[in-house]
């Protein structure tokens, strides 16, 4: 076997999912296929019978946006973390976070298309939406900017991921003989010389800097989609964009902690995905959650103190009305998630346990999903024209679409792990430094 003159590490631990297929993968693939088929089936039913046949959304009475839009915000939020972690690793030289970078980048690669798939089903006639935005889009429209930033973020992230993986493709061509030609083709002549490594590292460093504002703008645009509705009670708020960005950071880091802990446990990669790395990710998540709670409290306090009439109705429905059964439990779960992370990092510092961190991150994710639902639906329940107040309850089909997209993300990870290393193969002498 002719190598390309690079120094190949004989340790193939990180290639285990590529070299062997465990028995558990088959039922897992079956589960993922059935989850994704829920999305496809609902889409088919919706095209056949229209929105009214599968969703609880309605107009003019009721909510025109519902669970779909809450999930779009959730998935776009999760996609935030990819470049965030990768850029922090590169720009701040946090070597111990390097093994987490690709796991995070993949969250962007799978969650962003998942959000686009939900946008597609939410629109009802996706071809018209695409055609009309591209043909008649106005420079003032947030949706034009949404299309711009999502396309740019997705493409740039793809380029970033490819460049960061090129060395691994070349190494895999030597270490995985059965797919040698496939990896050689993907490596596009990469030879792993000092000069090539330096050039890639420098390019990725500059890309990290350029991608951070794009990452922030992706979720800011979604904040503006809501915040620019001057007459919609509960939405018209100059803090909507930073509020959304902060929520996205929480969402993304919470999901990364969960996914990384799972991968660490399943493959027994404790020496690569170090506890120090997970602990620092959780620490950052902890302080960001505290900031988010502060944002929520100041918003609620402002609206309780001297609200306009529209806000009175919306916030009354949250605090003691139709949505209080979601509002209070979600706020409690958010606080519990924060406390789990906080106590684990401070008072019980010496007995730091990973499962408490994962439980805290899961609680934060659940609470944030509910919060997104509460941003979207209650404001839409208050009609602005003389119509009666409607109701909205998500149907099982809508939940099926969300489950389908979770299946898409899980399936994406499974396929990726089968063909490519999910942790960047260490450079000579680097493995010891990470450990």
């Amino acid at each position, binding site marked *: 076997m002719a190598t390309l003159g690079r120094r190949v590490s004989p340790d193939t631990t990180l290639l285990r999912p590529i070299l062997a297929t465990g028995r558990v993968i088959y039922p897992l693939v079956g589960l993922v296929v059935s989850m994704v088929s829920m999305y496809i089936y609902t889409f088919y039913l919706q095209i056949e019978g229209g929105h009214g046949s599968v969703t609880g959304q309605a107009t003019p009475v009721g909510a025109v946006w519902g669970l779909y839009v809450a999930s779009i915000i959730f998935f776009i939020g999760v996609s935030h973390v990819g470049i965030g972690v990768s850029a922090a690793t590169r720009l701040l030289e946090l070597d111990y976070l390097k093994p987490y970078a690709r796991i995070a980048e993949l969250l962007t690669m799978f969650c962003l298309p998942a959000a686009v798939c939900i946008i597609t089903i939410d629109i009802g006639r996706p071809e018209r939406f695409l055609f009309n*935005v*591209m*043909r*008649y*889009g*106005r*420079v*003032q429209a947030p949706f*034009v900017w949404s*299309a*711009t930033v999502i*396309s*740019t973020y997705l*493409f*740039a992230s793809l*380029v*970033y991921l*490819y*460049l960061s993986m*090129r060395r691994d493709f070349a190494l895999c061509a030597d270490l995985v003989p059965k797919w040698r030609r496939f990896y050689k083709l993907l490596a*596009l*002549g990469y030879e792993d010389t000092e000069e*090539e490594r330096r*050039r*890639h590292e420098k*390019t*990725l460093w*500059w*890309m990290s800097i350029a991608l951070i504002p794009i990452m922030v703008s992706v979720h800011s645009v979604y904040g503006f989609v809501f915040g620019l509705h001057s007459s919609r009670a509960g939405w018209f708020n100059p803090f909507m964009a930073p509020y959304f960005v902060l929520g996205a950071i929480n969402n993304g880091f919470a999901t990364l902690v969960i996914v990384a802990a799972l991968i660490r446990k399943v493959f027994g990669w404790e020496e690569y995905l170090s506890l120090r790395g997970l602990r620092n990710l959780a620490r950052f998540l902890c302080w960001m959650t505290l900031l988010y709670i502060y944002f929520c409290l100041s918003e609620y306090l402002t609206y309780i103190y001297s609200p306009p009439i529209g806000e009175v109705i919306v916030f009354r429905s949250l605090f003691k009305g139709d949505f209080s059964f979601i509002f209070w439990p979600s706020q409690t779960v958010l606080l519990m998630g924060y406390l789990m992370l906080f106590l684990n990092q401070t008072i019980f510092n010496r007995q730091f346990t990973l499962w408490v961190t994962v439980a805290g991150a899961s609680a934060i994710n659940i609470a944030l999903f509910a919060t997104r639902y509460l941003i979207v639906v209650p404001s839409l329940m208050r009609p602005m024209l003389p119509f009666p107040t409607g109701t909205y309850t998500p149907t099982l089909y809508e939940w099926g679409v969300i489950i389908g997209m979770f299946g898409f993300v899980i399936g994406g990870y499974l396929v990726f792990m089968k063909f490519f290393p999910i942790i960047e193969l260490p450079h000579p002498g680097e493995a010891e430094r990470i450990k």
Partner: protein
Amino acid sequence: MKKHLIILANVIVSLSIAGTGMTRMILRDPLLGGGYEFSTLIWISGVVSFWLIPLEICIISDKKLTTH
């Protein structure tokens, strides 16, 4: 040298496409959005194609472009 020319060409083409798209979007009727159709598509194509530059920097090898 050829590599630099390719990158320069990409910068010029991307900026021109994005600039054209943005100008046409601004020139559209602000109320009805009439005229200058597909300017959003042009704008997004320009912005996205700009991100081919990192690929060109890393993938194109000067040695392979040199003709002996």
